């Protein structure tokens, strides 16, 4: 009974934070099958670690750590060609100017995928509006280092997105 309750609680929290996992899968895996595999592995790792979650940190911080650790070092990287995400694979934009947003998102995802693994995590946390303090808690890099990384990543992303093939 207790385990069932715990499982229900876990599933509800995962459902609530599903978007974070999907975004992490989208920036670390290029192919749809790789994204499915990564999504599965992240859920497996979260469920394995769930009994040790004591609530000392926020659930989202705990989830970010496990999901990023899984995406960054927990899966053996396959040598794959640089395949850009298809427009259809980009998560839908919710608003009216849907087409423009989707185009921007597509370009953004493609540009982020060209960054080194750690920079991708920094950029994602930045886009999710996390403070440098929270980023430090998740990644373990000093706030100074994170600021330097973010400034460099922004420059790189701007340059990449301005390339004609990105069409933004």
């Amino acid at each position, binding site marked *: 009974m207790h385990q069932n309750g715990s499982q229900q609680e876990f599933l509800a929290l995962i459902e609530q934070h599903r978007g974070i996992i999907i975004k992490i899968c989208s920036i670390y895996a290029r192919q749809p099958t790789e994204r499915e595999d990564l999504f599965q592995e992240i859920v497996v790792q979260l469920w394995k670690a769930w009994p040790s979650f004591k609530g000392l940190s926020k659930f989202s911080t705990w989830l970010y750590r496990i999901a990023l650790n899984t995406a*960054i*070092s*927990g899966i053996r990287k396959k040598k794959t060609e640089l395949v850009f995400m298809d427009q259809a694979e980009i998560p839908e*934009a919710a608003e009216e100017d849907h087409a423009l947003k989707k185009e921007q998102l597509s370009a953004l995802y493609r540009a982020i995928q060209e960054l080194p693994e750690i920079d991708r995590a920094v950029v994602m946390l930045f*886009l999710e509006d996390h403070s440098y303090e929270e980023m430090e808690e998740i990644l373990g890099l000093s706030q*100074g280092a994170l600021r330097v990384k973010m400034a460099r990543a922004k420059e790189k992303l701007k340059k990449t997105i301005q390339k004609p093939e990105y069409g933004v």
Partner: protein
Amino acid sequence: MEFEEFKDAWKSQKNDEPLQEVRSLLGKKSRSPIATMKRHLTMELIAVIILYAAIIIYYLTAFHGKFYSISVLYLFIGLFFCLYYYKKYRLLNNIECMACQVKSNLTKQVGVLEKYTKFYVLAGTAILPLLVVFFYWFEYAFIAPDRNKIFLLPSDQVSIFKAVAVFLLWMTIPTIIFYYINKWYVRKLYGKHVEQLKQMLLQTEDESNNS
């Protein structure tokens, strides 16, 4: 277009993409490199236990127990293997901390994986000379206490210098070859993964030093 503008697009994402039903994933096995290494290690251990148990039982019961000493030899070697697997399993159990900060998890993984691969190479290399020395001791202690009957052991016919020289020559070359084969094999198995982890760890360190 300013980078900040992308934030709006990022936040506008709907996250109802039906990737997979989460409940059905809870019973699945992890496919991470560490989980795979643990599974391989367990399978190797089970294979060794079954194989050695069969040999031990065979020599204990066949030939009216005349060759029971061979069972003892295999029991010792089997126990040695169990210790070897235990040490490897312990290293694998401490290799990652998924709920830790990304940088400390990477540092831990690189450190333990380097220890693990070093132990793999050293144990794999040492096993050959150790087994030969053990075999000689065992033959002398249990099978043929007459030194003259044991090949290469110093005796009335073989001087100690000759015995040591031939033994070293006999052992050194195969051990060196074994070392390089082991090194190549371990590198093939884990080299790329360790390199990738090191590169990522470098990404976390280089900026910290600059700031």
